[in-house]
């Protein structure tokens, strides 16, 4: 039998074959050179199971938890902020749509005025919004409402669906060679 190759020795040791296949065992008994190579390889493998010179400090897990909790709160705030903007745009657009279409629905909201100073302030705010929407959208307020709704849906979907999915794709699904 020829001398054992390094790959044969490594395969044999990795497979934990003890005793190794008959022809290899026999060869090892007869060949001092291969026996030395086998022993060197075995010792190297024993040494390689030593722990690396790096470990994470105590309290690392607590720091990670603190950082993800902070991130979660920031995300919640962002989602809340985007939702509020979307709701605001929808309200203003809707208000503009009702008023500017001349649907006569305004009269149904006049009871708000009877709510005292808070009601009056709210009505004044609606008037301001009406003027603002009138100036901004004009006769195209129905289109503005539709566009605002689409934007709001996209913004929410982006926060709640697309970004988490894309993050998942980029962090765990990618294969780099």
């Amino acid at each position, binding site marked *: 039998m020829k001398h054992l190759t390094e790959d044969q020795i490594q395969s044999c040791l990795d497979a934990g074959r003890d005793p190794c296949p008959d022809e290899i065992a026999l060869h090892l008994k007869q060949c001092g050179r291969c026996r030395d190579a086998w022993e*060197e*390889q075995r*010792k190297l493998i024993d040494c390689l199971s030593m722990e*690396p010179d790096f470990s*994470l400090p105590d309290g*690392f897990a607590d720091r990670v938890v603190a*950082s993800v909790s902070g991130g979660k709160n920031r995300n919640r705030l962002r989602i809340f902020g985007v939702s509020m903007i979307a709701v605001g745009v929808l309200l203003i657009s809707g208000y503009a749509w009702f008023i500017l279409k001349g649907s006569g629905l305004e009269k149904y909201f006049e009871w708000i005025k009877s709510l005292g100073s808070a009601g009056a302030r709210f009505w004044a705010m609606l008037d301001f919004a009406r003027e603002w929407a009138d100036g901004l959208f004009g006769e195209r307020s129905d289109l503005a409402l539709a566009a605002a709704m689409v934007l709001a849906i996209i913004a929410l979907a982006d926060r709640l669906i697309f970004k988490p999915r894309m993050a998942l794709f980029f962090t765990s699904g990618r294969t780099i060679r």
Partner: protein
Amino acid sequence: MMDDSALKACIEKAVCGDADAFRDVVLAHQRLVAHVVFRMTGNAADAEDLCQDVFVKVYQNLGGFRGESKFSTWVGRIAYNTCINHLQKKRMPLFGDMRNGLEGPDDEAGEGELPDAYAEGRDLKARLEREMACLPGLQRTVLTLYHVDEMSYIEIGEMLGMPEGTVKSHLFRARKRLKERLMKKYRVEECLP
């Protein structure tokens, strides 16, 4: 180490926002992540921050873990991809020798180290670490995952996104190179116990 059912329960709780459960998940996997990150980057200074980034990504994607592979393999894969991105950003060699060109007489005393200190630190572990540092990051990682974390070729392959044969080839090549380097520098009898 946590058993599978306890880990599954922790993951489910962590997905629902239980911070203590996520802490347990981190504790159970921080050793593996530290090994991957340290071996891939070869830099202890960056390793801790990178490990934190890895676990933040684990947390963000926890809901997407479908159990198609072992959880540890999935976490290790996130660690590996995070390291690849880090090395790409720093324009460091991904799979090449981190210390190319250091072989030769200058390499004897180690980088920036006094000969006395080198002589004092000539214990086996220090020698191995020194020589390991000269291997490419991927080979160092495969060696550590196989020998220290006791993962199989298949698990390492799943984690690093490569076939079993490629893992084996990296492992064999790394051991061969390491042995050659150790033999070249030290006498055979003092090189390995």
